[in-house]
């Protein structure tokens, strides 16, 4: 974890770089949506860009690139349940399709 001021001073440049990258990806998200891809491709592209932006916020701004084991464990468990929550209800839809 960043605890000394010299390390934080170095990190400031990274924060600015990530900020510029996030801006570029935001413009890219809007630009890509203008292409009118087929819906599955459009969803995949938009979510890949959003996930890239999200991982930059997580790793750099939330300092996940250098965190303690307890936090990684918490996040791993959360995402396991998050994906279950996200996709399990879809099974009910599949049931309906095949009936």
């Amino acid at each position, binding site marked *: 974890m*960043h*605890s*000394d*001021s010299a390390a*934080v*001073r170095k*990190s*400031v440049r990274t*924060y*600015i770089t*990530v*900020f510029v990258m*996030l*801006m570029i990806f*935001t413009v890219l*998200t*809007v630009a890509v*949506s203008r292409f009118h891809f087929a*819906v599955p491709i*459009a*969803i995949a592209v*938009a*979510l890949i*860009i*959003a996930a890239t*932006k*999200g991982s930059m*916020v*997580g790793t750099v*701004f*939330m300092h996940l690139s250098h965190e*303690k*084991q*307890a*936090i990684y464990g*918490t*996040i791993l*468990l*959360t*995402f396991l*349940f*998050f994906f279950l*929550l*996200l*996709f*399990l*209800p*879809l099974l*009910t*839809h599949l049931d309906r399709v095949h009936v």
Partner: protein
Amino acid sequence: MNIPYTVEERPDTGLTNGKFGIWLFLASEVMLFGALFSTYILLRVGAEEWPHGELSVPLGTINTIILISSSVTMVMAWASLKMNDWAKHRLYLALTLVLSGIFLGIKYVEYSEHFGKGEGPWHSNFFALYFTMTGLHALHIICGMIVMLYFLGPGAKMWKKNPEQFTNRIEATGLYWHFVDLVWIFLFPVLYLL
């Protein structure tokens, strides 16, 4: 009575109580928003038609830029404390507060426009989801603003008494704020662009 491990790290987790606490809270927040994203997927997959172009992309883009900028000012507010620069910390925290205010202002304009056209949450599944998801997100913004106002006002006294604990509190506020930004990063394409 003093609460232990506010400044020193716990021997078992290597974290302060506050930091581990805010991460557990964020885990519960992931599940809260996860339930809404799950609802979105279920309704969208089941719908024969889904409205497109109902929301203002320019306003959504501006709000995305504002919220990302506020994430940077927030992390700079924390970094300034680590570098012992109190004046810069105040400036960056105030900037974060202003940016979050602008975000809410733009959201108000969007909401007014839709209500003016009779496009409230009752209008369709899309608008029900739009108002629920962005409304809950806006509520999080308001909560964050209250915390920032506290640290700009009465909460700031702690810096003189216990600077390390104050820095930890700003770090926890920052983690919450970045999470709010993270949620918007996904809400924007899902609601405005797809």
